[in-house]
């Protein structure tokens, strides 16, 4: 079971190898991986929308979509048909070329990062030696297309959304990169496959003091990177209508939506890879483990969405620079201490450092924190 898909691909290649030249087999091998990702990405996205609507619906004491097909299972298809048949509106003052390019281009990095996600043992499209870096680099390019979309729409709300997006990405990129550094230090490699292999046998990094903090940091900054609640300022509906995609409709809008959901999936998958042991786990096949872990994280994102209001721009920045960034730096120190000492001592020491870091940051940020209030009543 574990190697189901790997064996499937292998047997197809052997079959093709009987009558095709070698280069064609390699081409087919590449095409199979690419097709698998190109199908998996959008299908995931379609059903993530349904999952989100159902989950948030239940949180809000309602059913969620349940009319199209059993349990609304055909809802994503209906939405797709609707999106495709919708009129494509381009504002008169828009830069038509850029307005068209942005939604198309934004999907590319979203799909490309799937290449380094190790879905299971031997189930990674490309085992790049710089896997994590590849992921970080490509996910940062999303900003440009958001910004291009915002500018090309020639709408003030879009522009505000685009500016917020850039500011947010620039701020959260730094703690995000820093929160992965401890793992890279311990593993000594950027390769996602190597990172997963280093966590075999319940040595999940999240179970260490620095790993716990790193996990929370990476996940939170990841949520911020994909613009989801409570960091969804670029599209903050109640303030700037729909932010950078205000002027998009139909399929172009669907592409933005697709990129967002595929990004949330990849970020969850990468977080599980880096901190939750990836496809490692008992009994079940590896790819199932990765899916379970990623979906659990996605559900947490949806849970956030169902619960939390959104930050304000300055608070968002403050959170990144005053809390996440110093914590990430101190966390690297904790990981260094972990590496420098032997097994039982390093747990204690890095736990102390992490606890101290949290404590110091809490008190340092205390003046800016909101306070509980006591209310009085008018005297008669």
């Amino acid at each position, binding site marked *: 079971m574990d190697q189901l898909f790997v064996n499937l691909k292998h047997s197809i290649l052997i079959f093709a190898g009987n009558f095709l030249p070698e280069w064609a087999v390699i081409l087919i091998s590449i095409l199979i991986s690419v097709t698998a990702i190109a199908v998996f990405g959008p299908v995931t996205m379609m059903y993530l929308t349904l999952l989100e609507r159902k*989950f948030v619906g*239940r*949180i*809000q*004491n*309602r*059913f969620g979509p349940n009319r199209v097909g059993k349990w609304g299972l055909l809802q994503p298809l209906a939405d797709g048909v609707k999106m495709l048949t919708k009129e494509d509106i381009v504002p008169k003052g828009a830069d038509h070329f850029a307005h068209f390019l942005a939604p198309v281009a934004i999907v590319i990095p979203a799909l490309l990062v799937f290449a380094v996600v190790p879905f299971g043992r031997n189930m990674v499209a490309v085992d790049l030696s710089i896997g994590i870096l590849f992921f970080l680099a490509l996910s940062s390019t999303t900003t440009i297309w958001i910004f291009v979309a915002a500018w090309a729409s020639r709408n003030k709300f879009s522009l505000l959304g685009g500016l917020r997006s850039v500011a947010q990405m620039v701020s959260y990129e730094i703690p995000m990169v820093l929160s992965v550094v401890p793992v890279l230090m311990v593993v000594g490699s950027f390769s996602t496959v190597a990172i997963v292999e280093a966590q075999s046998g319940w040595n999940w990094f999240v179970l260490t003091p620095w790993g716990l903090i790193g996990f929370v940091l990476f996940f939170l900054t990841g949520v911020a990177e994909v613009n989801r609640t409570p960091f969804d300022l670029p599209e903050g509906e109640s303030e700037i209508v729909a932010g950078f995609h205000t002027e998009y409709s139909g399929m172009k809008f669907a592409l933005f939506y697709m990129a967002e959901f595929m990004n949330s999936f990849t970020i969850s998958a990468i977080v599980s890879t880096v901190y939750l042991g990836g496809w490692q786990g008992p009994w079940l096949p590896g790819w199932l483990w990765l899916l379970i872990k990623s979906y659990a994280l996605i559900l947490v994102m949806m*849970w*956030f969405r*169902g*619960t*939390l209001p959104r930050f304000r721009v300055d608070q968002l920045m403050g959170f990144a620079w005053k809390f996440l960034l110093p914590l990430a730096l101190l966390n690297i120190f904790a990981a260094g201490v972990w590496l420098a000492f032997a097994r039982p001592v390093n747990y204690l020491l890095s736990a102390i450092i992490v606890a101290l870091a949290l404590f110091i940051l*809490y008190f340092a*940020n205390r003046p800016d*924190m909101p306070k509980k209030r006591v209310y009085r009543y008018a005297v008669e």
Partner: protein
Amino acid sequence: MFGFGVLKGMLVTIQNFFASYFSKDHLTTVQYPEERLSAKERYRNFPFLVYDQAPEDPRCVACDICAKECPPKCITIVRDSDAEGKPLKRPKSFDIDYSICMNCGICEEVCPFDAIFMDHEFELAEYGRFEDLMYHKDRLLKPNDHFKKIRPTDATRIDAKLAAKTQKPAPPVGN
């Protein structure tokens, strides 16, 4: 400690998530066309006219009070007349524009003859905006049994009142 408030809130939402599978109180949606809420007896929507025996002989005497008191002025009544042009105590036409009516129920309150009441019917969607929503006498007239069915309490009270009135020799004079 920072963050506990957020976690508390998340606890509330996840409780609601699970409760929606177990408690009816946490999944209040009524799946409308298949399930329906039972209408409250006093529910009022649009007015209709009551007749006792035959639709040709409604309770309405065309006194025009409801038309005058209707706040948005959605009722138009034309009084019937016999061959010599003498006015009769029945409406020749009685039109209510449902697109104007605001369901306030004042017509029912002011009617001295208990001839007009608020109906429970609410599935009134039409394709035409003007003529289709202009309800004429034929569509407005409904038997007293309908009234008894939708509002038993009021119907019994009014029937008793009318019965008491018919005992008396002189029926009440309109206008």
